[in-house]
């Protein structure tokens, strides 16, 4: 069992969970993830490790609740526990040693760039973080990132920071001409837009792919992604890849595999509140809840 040490809501649907996992806290490197399973009957969900405290023996998971499994996880309170936490999985981020790096985080993806920005800063790299959200309450981890980088916060509706998308801010930074590497994590369309933009500036770009996976050790092959025309397994070959080589359209498409299950689960959850209106899901094709892995 892996007890919850602390929880904190960061945005309307993003929660920080600090979990006791001493071994993982001791050895994890930026970019790595864990697979968590809340308890009997629960899914195995991949979650990037956002931070660690080796002394306290804790890891920090930042979770966007978008379906039953993640909603169940963020409902945990200190003293309760996650049954299984396996890791650290995936390869560590390949980081530059000197120069200027830009870390771009969209939504909950900001949680994944936090450890990258921290490690880059530790190495003496100058770091600019560009983070975005729909509006003010969706911008997360700004104070944490500000400790190791210059932060440009953007909101789609202009309610906070710079109005517009992160790509617009990124374009201005790239135009200054001194960027050596870009690390971008967020929704697939954002990572795709960032990669297309940086390609024009010939700046190496690393993205973290949130493919669907079961075991996280290369066994199931569900997380296969096409990079540079070849099939790779995000869990063991990644999760980070060269953004200029990734087939984002295929990734976005594969992430919709269980969307009908997800919708049925939401309908079912609603129906549970009003039993008389219970929605009968089509048993043949749809009967389970799922979420896209959030990382």
């Amino acid at each position: 069992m892996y007890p919850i040490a602390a929880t904190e809501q960061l945005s309307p649907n993003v929660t920080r969970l600090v979990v006791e996992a001493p071994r993982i806290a001791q050895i994890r490197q930026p970019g790595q993830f864990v697979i968590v399973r809340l308890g009997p009957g629960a899914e195995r969900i991949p979650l990037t490790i956002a931070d660690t405290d080796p002394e306290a023996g804790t890891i920090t998971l930042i979770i966007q609740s978008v379906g039953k499994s993640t909603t169940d996880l963020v409902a945990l309170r200190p003293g309760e526990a996650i049954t299984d936490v396996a890791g650290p999985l995936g390869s560590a981020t390949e980081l530059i040693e000197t120069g200027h790096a830009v870390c771009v985080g969209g939504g909950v993806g900001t949680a994944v760039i936090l450890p990258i920005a921290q490690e880059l800063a530790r190495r003496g790299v100058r770091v600019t973080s560009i983070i975005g959200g729909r509006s003010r309450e969706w911008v997360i981890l700004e104070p944490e990132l500000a400790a190791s980088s210059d932060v440009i916060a953007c909101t789609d509706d202009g309610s906070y920071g710079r109005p517009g998308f992160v790509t617009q801010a990124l374009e201005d930074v790239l135009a200054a001409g001194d960027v050596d590497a870009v690390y971008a994590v967020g929704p697939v369309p954002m990572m795709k837009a960032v990669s297309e933009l940086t390609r024009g500036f010939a700046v190496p770009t690393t993205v973290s792919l949130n493919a669907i996976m079961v075991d996280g050790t290369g066994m199931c092959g569900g997380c296969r992604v096409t990079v540079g025309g070849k099939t790779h397994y995000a869990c063991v070959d990644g999760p980070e890849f060269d953004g200029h080589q990734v087939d984002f359209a295929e990734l976005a498409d594969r992430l919709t595999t269980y969307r009908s299950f997800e919708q049925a689960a939401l309908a079912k959850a609603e129906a549970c509140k009003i039993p008389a209106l219970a929605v009968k899901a089509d048993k043949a094709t749809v009967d389970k809840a799922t979420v896209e892995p959030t990382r």
Partner: protein
Amino acid sequence: MSDREETPPTPQDIVRRILAGEQVELDPRQRMTIDRVAMPEEDAEVRSHSFEEVNLGLTEHMAVLEAERCLQCKNPKCIDGCPVRVNIPKFIDHLRRGDMAGAADSLLGDNALPCVTGRVCPQETQCEGLCLRAKKGTSVGIGSLERYVADWAQAHPEALTRALPIARNRSVAIVGSGPAGLTAAGELAKRGYDVTIFEAFHAAGGVLIYGIPQFRLPNDIVEKEVDRLVELGVKIETNAIIGKTYTLDELRQRFDAVFLAVGAGLPVFMDVPGENLKGVYSANEYLTRVNLMGAWGEDSDTPVLHGQRVVVVGGGNVAMDAVRTARRLGASDAVIVYRRGHDELPARAEEVHHAEQEGIRFEFQVAPIEVVGDEQHWVTGLRCQRMELGEPDASGRRRPEPIPGSEFVIACDMVVVAIGTRSNPLLRATAPDLAVNEWGYIVSDEHGMTSLPGVFAGGDIVRGSATVILAMGDGKRAAGAIDRYLTTGSAAEAAEPVSTEAPTA
């Protein structure tokens, strides 16, 4: 009445009397007249919609009757056919005399997982294939007798003789809790070693729980076999991935010996266009979602696609498991596509037979060339070509070659690829000194020892894709070698073979 007792009983009388629970003294000639007892099976139509076990198991009297068919050969060939060398005539002899506890003690002394092997071994090519009676009709149903005794033992733990090992104060790490790892753990625990199993998943059992479906091997049977090992003192650390959570070097520092039984791992895909369309699964993923994650049941959050028309590519046991699972999850059309013919199917004969009974369709001498999809990138079909068998290849099997112009499409909404696995790279990524062959499988000597002293390996990570029982054989052999290595400093056998019998109270 006394006149009638003088008359030798007819074969029908013998069967009737034994099935009624009577002890009957038989001579070999009379034993030969008894026909093999058929394993009771769930009705094919019922089971096509159910994950309950297909084989229902023999009753006690049926088991005794089948045991009476054994001729108790002086030089029993069946034992030679068994990778873990179960003393088959011995447990059968206890069984036919109604001494179930004796049968169970004998069987468990030789085999750490008899409930498993009694269900999934390819007996027809092993013990039963060498049975004297197979030459003149049908072999003794060794598999069903093993299952009977093993299930009896699970139900009557209090009746079993407790092994009382002498603690050795030496520790062994076992990496992987599949058939090789569990067997080695059991053997070493019985010899008094301090054994810890490291398992990557959240539950122990390896392929026995993520791969083999409930209808062939219920997970609770595996759980009870694992519980028995825990009672012997075996410790199990789940969520521990060697190469990630711990390195092999760390295990070598913490333990006196290490046994690597991580299984094969990475699924092989067909390398044809369209393979990343939605609706294409590896058999590993499909079976793991259904078996380990319980996606077949109501109380699991893990989703799995319920294909209505499902094509499974491959002809082994995994392919049969996948296609029969798809059938149970509602597929009206469930098809095996295999590039060779019926007689070349590598699957156990019983699995093929059960699949046929359940209405599985077989497309033989057919190879896939493309997965076809719609605009939303969902699978709509599998484009194939017909094959003819050419000259025998290196393995002696005739190599299938495509017939020009024979292309056709099998309409389907799901494709499961069950054509094998590659070695998993995680372990060797952090163990550069561990010698592997060109396919990434670990190289080991005749005792199971790898290039690293004190590190042994067995099962699929050495053999590539093999069977449960061969993995168990490796586990048992490695346990013996580890025992010798830790007591004599050499894994090689002494002149006198070391007894594998557990010390008993």
